[in-house]
């Protein structure tokens, strides 16, 4: 003999199958809720995750850049956009002598062209191996040697036409390795030392594109990364750099300060997403509640027949609740499936249009998020069916048989 719960389950499934249009409409509401929750969560979490990774990878407390270039610097660090700005190295010595600075290193940025002279338009990062605390630990961790003259490392997302060489300004340079993927803007950069940078600047292709270089690569700096001593106030040191060094064409920002634009974008995105979710939740609950109430009222005679055949009130309530659970689960499940496919297929245009560097598509993260979305979908659907359940279980047999409004 079949158990009561399996009979209730089968009855609920058959009820849903008998009215496919109504079932699909109700599933659609839950589907919309699950899709919007899943997609907005992935977008917001990806934005926050990349910001955190970029800040962690940077490992500096203060960034010094030429005046009015902080926006370009932030876009380059966060979105991997090409940038090429410099200031004179003489200011590095002035800044590094200030109190409270534990260590500092410099980087220079050069952008190649998206033309036949170059394999691709790529950001070149020139670091100083003697003082560097950003790229070198990364190389050491992977057991990679420092690049020599004419050698370079490429980021994980760079695919040169030939595996061991890349062309910049008409000259080929030797690739000694490809770095591991970091899901930050560093994945689309090329790393080299100042000797290689000087070689590029001395090439004929560079002269044809930008003219003869006016300064040596070793005399130019694009950014200065500073680590402050333990207990020192990074904000105070940044203020000191900005206001105490007279005539300096540089501005200092704390890591959070330079990303303030990105942080405010993340915050507003989180805010919009929360408002959208609350609105969706209210709309879906109202819609499901209405549909459940209307259909249960239409089905009073059906429940009356079941009750007169001996089906108890809790079992009648169980049928309605099971219908709600099935609708919630299937709607939520399909919503997640469609969202995952859409996010994978359209990740590139989403990233470009919403200025999100990387979408988080890690399996473990997606599984946890899917479980949360399905749980919410089922909870919303169950919540919406509670009123109808209560009405069905409370109404007397004669009222049900007469088809009275519940």
């Amino acid at each position, binding site marked *: 003999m079949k158990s009561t719960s399996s009979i209730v389950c089968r009855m609920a499934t058959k009820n849903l199958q008998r009215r496919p249009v109504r079932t699909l409409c109700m599933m659609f509401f839950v589907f919309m809720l699950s899709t919007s929750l899943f997609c907005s969560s992935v977008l917001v979490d990806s934005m926050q995750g990349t910001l955190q990774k970029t800040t962690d990878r940077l490992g500096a407390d203060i960034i010094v850049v030429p005046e009015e270039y902080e926006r370009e610097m932030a876009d380059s660090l966060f979105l991997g956009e090409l940038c090429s700005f410099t200031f004179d190295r003489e200011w590095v010595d002035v800044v590094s002598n200030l109190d409270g600075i534990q260590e500092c290193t410099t980087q220079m940025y050069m952008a190649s062209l*998206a033309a*036949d002279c170059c394999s*691709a*338009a790529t950001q070149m990062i020139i670091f100083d191996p003697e003082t560097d605390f950003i790229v070198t630990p990364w190389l050491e961790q992977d057991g990679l040697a420092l690049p020599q003259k004419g050698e370079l490392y490429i980021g994980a*997302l*760079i*695919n040169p036409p030939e595996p061991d060489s890349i062309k910049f300004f008409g000259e080929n340079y030797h690739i000694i390795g490809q770095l591991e993927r970091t899901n930050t803007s560093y994945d*689309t950069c090329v790393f080299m030392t100042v000797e290689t940078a000087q070689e590029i600047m001395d090439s004929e292709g560079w002269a044809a594109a930008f003219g003869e270089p006016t300064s040596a690569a070793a005399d130019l700096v694009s950014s200065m990364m500073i680590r402050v001593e333990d207990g020192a106030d990074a904000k105070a040191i940044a203020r000191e750099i900005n206001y105490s060094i007279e005539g300096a064409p540089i501005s200092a920002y704390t890591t959070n300060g330079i990303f303030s634009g990105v942080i405010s974008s993340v915050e507003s995105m989180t805010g919009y997403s929360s408002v959208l979710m609350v609105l969706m939740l209210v709309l879906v609950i109202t819609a499901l509640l209405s549909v459940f109430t209307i259909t249960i009222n239409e089905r009073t005679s059906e429940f009356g027949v079941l009750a007169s055949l001996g089906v108890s009130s809790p079992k009648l309530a169980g049928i309605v609740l099971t219908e709600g659970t099935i609708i919630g689960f299937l709607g939520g499940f399909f919503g997640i499936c469609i969202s995952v*496919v859409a996010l*994978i*297929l*359209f990740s*590139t*245009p989403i*990233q*470009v*249009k919403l200025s999100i560097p990387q979408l988080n598509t890690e399996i473990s993260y997606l599984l946890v998020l899917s479980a949360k979305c399905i749980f919410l979908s089922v909870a919303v659907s169950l919540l919406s069916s509670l009123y109808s359940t209560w009405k069905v279980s409370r109404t007397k047999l004669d009222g049900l048989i007469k088809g009275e409004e519940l």
Partner: protein
Amino acid sequence: MMKQKVVSIVSGILALLLAVGPWTLFQACPTTEKVMKCHWCCRAVIPVAIILLVITVLQLLIKDTKLFRKLSLVGIVGFIMPILLTTLLIGGCMKPEMACNVVAFPVINTLSAVGIVLQVIGFLTKEK
């Protein structure tokens, strides 16, 4: 029968768009002396689209539901191919903001996804 006709006609239009669209309506990156990867990807989509077009014409002509369902199964696999070509097998340009990544490939993927859904509907058609 009506459902089968709609499935085959719309799928045929999608297949035609997959073949012609990347060169006319939703163009990939312009071809200069240096030919980009996306150019070859869009070329690879053409034979797949032609096969899909033949399948949809056959679907329109035949009256046997069993055969229609079998062709739908091939159609599903066929419509998966452009997605694989643009994402895994060939791909496009490195820079995400290039025309292939922002316009051509998303449209190809959308058309293919709609095609898959239509062919699944065709496959689920009940025999009478």
